[in-house]
């Protein structure tokens, strides 16, 4: 194409070039050529998937406020230990510790309130966004990503539930849901379906819970040495088991809650603050095109104040 033929009006230039060279690639072509002709069934079996589903949903229950609908009871912890025994020794030991530390509901309710409740102002945050690097301005998109996962599998945050979508209980319930589907699809012999749900579990763990569970568990252990610390250990054991089996490599969140407010890589040390108003800037006048307002009432007053002293 010669330069003089170019018109700024038209489809994307990359596609225009393709047309002229006779190429007609589409997304489908890409998929056909890249796709592995004999996809391998992901590791696991229906029974293990079912145990895993049970563990995830019992963990969600265990981290809920212990009253009425939430919280674990004696029967639940027995089920917890049985399910864990089918998976892995470390997970089983962690589940047994939960069973050992089960106290009565009133006692657990008190502990829960001091750890997660608004009663004492959130000692440990159960929300993913708290642990992510960067300011809220850029981390909120993770909420959309999480809700996207829920939507893709036809579920949503219940209207009566008071939490945001990144709450640990929702993430655990979502994983339970995926494992349950995994079990059903394996029984039905639906290999394609199994691949889809396991892929989703993989991506979700890698992009979400797998990144921050260890910080969350660490925070609980730092503030509790009873039942909830045991639940946190079980959560960590289960997710670590998943990471090993599914061969995942989640990018861990930073190990402190220090927030990078602005990208220092690009803006240098000044990138720490917002810098939007230029208030913290030195030598602004040197910048080319600076407004250089000669009649800045603010600075004049400050100057007068100094003179008076």
């Amino acid at each position, binding site marked *: 194409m010669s330069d003089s033929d170019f018109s*700024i*009006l038209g489809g994307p230039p990359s596609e225009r070039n393709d047309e002229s060279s006779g190429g007609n690639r589409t997304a489908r072509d890409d998929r056909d050529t890249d796709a592995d002709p004999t996809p391998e069934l992901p590791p696991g079996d229906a029974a293990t998937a079912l145990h895993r589903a049970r563990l995830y949903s019992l963990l969600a229950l265990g981290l809920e406020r212990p009253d009425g609908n939430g919280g674990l009871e004696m029967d639940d912890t027995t089920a917890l230990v049985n399910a864990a025994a089918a998976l892995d020794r470390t997970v089983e030991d962690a589940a047994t510790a939960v069973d050992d530390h089960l106290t009565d509901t009133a006692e657990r309710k008190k502990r829960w309130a001091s750890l997660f409740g608004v009663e004492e102002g959130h000692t440990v945050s159960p929300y993913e966004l708290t642990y992510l690097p960067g300011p809220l301005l*850029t981390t909120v998109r993770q909420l959309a990503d999480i809700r996207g996962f829920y939507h893709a599998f036809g579920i949503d945050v219940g209207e009566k539930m008071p939490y945001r979508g990144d709450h640990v209980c929702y993430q655990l319930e979502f994983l339970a849901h995926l494992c349950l589907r995994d079990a059903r699809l394996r029984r039905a012999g639906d290999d394609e379906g199994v691949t889809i749900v396991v892929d989703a579990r993989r991506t979700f763990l890698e992009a979400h819970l797998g990144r921050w569970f260890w910080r969350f568990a660490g925070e609980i252990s730092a503030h509790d040495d009873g039942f909830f610390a045991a639940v946190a250990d079980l959560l960590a054991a289960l997710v670590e088991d998943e990471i090993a089996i599914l061969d995942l490599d989640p990018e861990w969140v930073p190990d402190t809650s220090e927030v990078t407010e602005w990208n220092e890589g690009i803006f240098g040390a*000044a990138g720490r603050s917002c810098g*939007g108003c230029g208030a913290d800037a030195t030598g602004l006048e040197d910048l080319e*095109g600076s407004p250089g307002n000669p009649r800045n009432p603010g600075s004049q007053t400050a100057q007068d104040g100094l003179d008076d002293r």
Partner: protein
Amino acid sequence: MPQVHNWQLNREVEFPYEESRPERQWAAMFDLNKCIECQTCTLACKTTWTHEEGQEHMFWNNVETKPYGAHPIGWDKRTLEDMGTMEWDGDTYEGDTIFETEDVDWDDPENHPTEERINEDVAGFMPDIEDDWRYPNLGEDETAGEEMDLDVHFDEDTHPIWFFYLPRICNHCTYAGCAGGCPVQAIYKRPEDGVVLIDREECQAQMVCNETCPYKKAQYNPAETISQKCVGCYPKTEDGRAPQCFETCLGKIRLHGYINTPEEADDSDPMAEPTNPLDFLVHQKEVALPLYPQFGLEPNVYYIPPTTAPVDYLEQLFGPGVEDAFETYRAIGDGEEPALEGLLNLMGSTEWSITAFEVDDGEAVGYYEGDEVGRVPITEPQTERDRVDEVDGEEVYRLDIT
């Protein structure tokens, strides 16, 4: 050598490529008398499009305080200085546009920007990523005019002490400067709606668009090593929805629609039949004006200028139509412009783009491609209370009686 017709300058202007107009042109109107600089638009855009690493400095929508605010620093002042004298003879612009400043013959394909020959012959500057983008709110609320004294009175329409807020997005220019400068022809205008996009597959990070967009709305992303710009929220507008910064605008200052050239403009009367609102505002009423038309790109965001700022300053920003625009705008207050009043009430009252509107029995009605998408009264019902009231045996005087 004349190249393309620019109706905003009432003459042929130079541009590297042939004139070709889209089927319809994405367009906007912002009423500057209503912007409160809440920056809701800025954040709506930021959280939608520019929240990734490498986009920290990007505000595809920004709102700056005029005359002293500018993001990037001094963007308009620096380009204007490069362009030299800017004279108008009536409606005709006699100065140079950014593509004319250096007397390049754009008719000669030899002069078209190519990979080997990046064109330096366009007025403007390359913003420095370290410094120029660093202070998006510089000059915020800085006043111009007289000193603030106890005895200053605001008697006239033009205030002795003034500033105003200028929200800015990409203008999806008819003669897009970004596209005109790109040496690898990676920037294009969609034929269906005139939205200007950078093809990320083709962009080779030459960054010339950062320089040749005088509005500085094509911006380099160092993490992705490509330039990026406002996409006009085309995934929304394709469905008839107004872009994010329009839908969220608290001041209801924004109207999204499509505009025609003066020759093809809709000249019907909204008091009688559905009329294109952008054509009505820009061509019929001439109350909304392009920003820095003298750059020569035929930008497609139109502004009702703020009536409190001095006309000579506003003429530099919006061209010679400012006084006439004021006259028409003020006539609304006297009840002489019911259709205009209705349209200004209608905008912001619907999340849809408005392709036609009309006045129907004291109400302004908006349509998107024939479907009714908004209906508001032209005059809000008001009740007036007594100015003096008796409460608990005391006489109470009310300042606000409506």
